[in-house]
């Protein structure tokens, strides 16, 4: 058995050696080392470790309030860590602002969809290419040939992404007017438009019907086949987690309590206890 280093708390994280080997030989795209984040007196994330391998879909699961979104917020630069490090493609992400992290190759979606409601779907996706462009005020005002070429490139790329998620027909529709499920996909298209190496999805199937969730799962699997991408997700929907994850990490109360292949996690007593609570003491 492989024991994690949370010995001081008495919690041991068990991972099968078999699991370790499956992932051990792949390149590590994102490495979170002993990450700690506090809000006032509350410790939201406590010495959390994670390694995400290139080309895989990794999931973080856990009960509400476990700290999953906080981890995402630190990885994407919205918060700075109080302890520990986040290393992406070999570089430490500390002191980077969110937009700089996007330029480095991490793109995210939000738990509560955050689109640019009063802009068209196409404009939403085009905004993803912002960090890949360079036209400044001068060249924009005078429409230099460089700027026009860049705008065309951005537009084509955005249309391509819209087509990829099946929303091209809504390209001129305002984002607030399309269906909820389509809005989720639009957010993903916007994230993809940034040409990321790592796609970070926060509960992407939340609010979707079973059918839509299955379409999403298929989409993500196909995505990995077609592109040089790694996916990290937070999910509550066990179907999705079991269906597409290559590796699952479980958090509770800011800590990692288990990690491994999906089928192993599913049966792990610590995980079940975290979600459902301990069995009641028998009444006397």
């Amino acid at each position, binding site marked *: 058995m492989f024991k994690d280093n949370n010995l001081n708390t008495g919690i041991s994280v068990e991972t099968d050696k078999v699991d370790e080997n499956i992932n051990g030989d792949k390149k590590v795209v994102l490495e979170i080392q002993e990450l700690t984040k506090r*809000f006032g007196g509350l410790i939201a994330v406590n010495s959390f470790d994670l390694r995400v391998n290139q080309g895989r879909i990794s999931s973080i699961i856990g009960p509400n309030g476990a700290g999953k*979104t906080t981890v995402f*917020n630190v990885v994407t630069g*919205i918060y700075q860590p109080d302890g520990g490090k986040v290393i992406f493609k070999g570089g430490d992400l500390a002191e980077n602002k969110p937009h700089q992290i996007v330029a480095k190759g991490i793109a995210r979606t*939000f738990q509560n969809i955050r689109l640019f409601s009063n802009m068209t779907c196409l404009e939403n996706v085009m905004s993803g290419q912002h960090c890949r462009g360079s036209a400044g005020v001068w060249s924009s005002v005078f429409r230099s040939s460089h700027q026009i070429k860049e705008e065309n490139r951005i537009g084509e790329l955005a249309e391509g992404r819209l087509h990829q998620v099946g929303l091209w027909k809504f390209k001129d529709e305002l984002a607030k007017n399309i269906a909820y499920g389509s809005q989720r996909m639009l957010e993903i298209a916007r994230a993809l438009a940034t040409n990321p190496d790592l796609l970070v999805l926060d509960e992407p199937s939340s609010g979707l019907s079973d059918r839509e969730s299955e379409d999403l799962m298929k989409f993500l699997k196909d995505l990995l086949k077609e592109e040089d991408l790694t996916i990290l997700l937070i999910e509550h929907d066990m179907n999705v987690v079991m269906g597409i994850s290559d590796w699952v990490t479980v958090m509770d109360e800011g800590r990692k309590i288990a990690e491994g292949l999906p089928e192993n996690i599913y049966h792990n007593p610590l995980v079940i206890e975290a979600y459902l609570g301990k069995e009641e003491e028998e009444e006397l």
Partner: protein
Amino acid sequence: MRVFLEQLLNGLTIGSFYALIALGYSMVFGVMKLINFAHGDLFALGSYLGFTILVLGTAYITSYLGLWGGMIAAIIIAAICLAVVGTLVERIAYRKIYPAGRLPLVVSALGVSIFLQNSIMVVWGPRPQAYTANVVPSAYLQIGEVRITLLQIIILVLSFLLMSILYYIIQKTTFGAAIRASALDRDTAALMGININTIIFFIFALGPALGGTAGVMVGMYYRKISFIMGWNYGLKAFTATILGGIGNIPGAMIGGLLLGVLEMLGSGYISTAYKDVFVFIVLILVLIFRPRGLLGEKVAEKV
């Protein structure tokens, strides 16, 4: 030392005015998330109403009510009228606009402000008016080196009384808890069974009423009133609201008093001409280094 204490006293007096006006801003902003630009002009209206009652109705008043009666009558009538006008303003100008968002509300509030200001000008004329000198006898109390006038005592006592009553209502009664709840999260408060319309009625009646009271007192203290005074006082009172923490009632009171004191100290020790600049610089520094104000809650946005 004497100068300092007297400036402090003056500051507290002015601060009381700012505090009373700030309370109106704070209550409305806390619950409705609306900067009621018209509030300053409601205060000015109170001042002019007081003027009408006291100065134009002098003969009537002195013969029937006596000196003190006149002052009390002016304050009560002004407060009641302002309560009515305040609720009317909400009804007519704001209620239909809530669904449209914050910016249209701001424009509407500005429109009401322009309307009120110019109504005052139309009714009472464009030139400044003046209260008579002796609404209250010009007696004073000498404590050690410091001289405090009867008028100041009245103002401070009355303001303190009003603020205490309001503080008690807000902090110690169920209704007050309902108001505080609405200020934190209006929709949830409504879902919890709080009648938001009652809350709205209360804040739009009481806020302007307090402002109107301040208006009468300002008239008695400074004597000169003009139809544009609403903007100046309104801006300062809003500064006080921010200083104390937006949406926080005790904060508005402390913010107002503090602002008055700062202004007087700035005027005394720096320069009278730049005292307003000093006040605004304080405001900006507070916003940069402590945006929630002195007593405000730290509000983080959940991502």
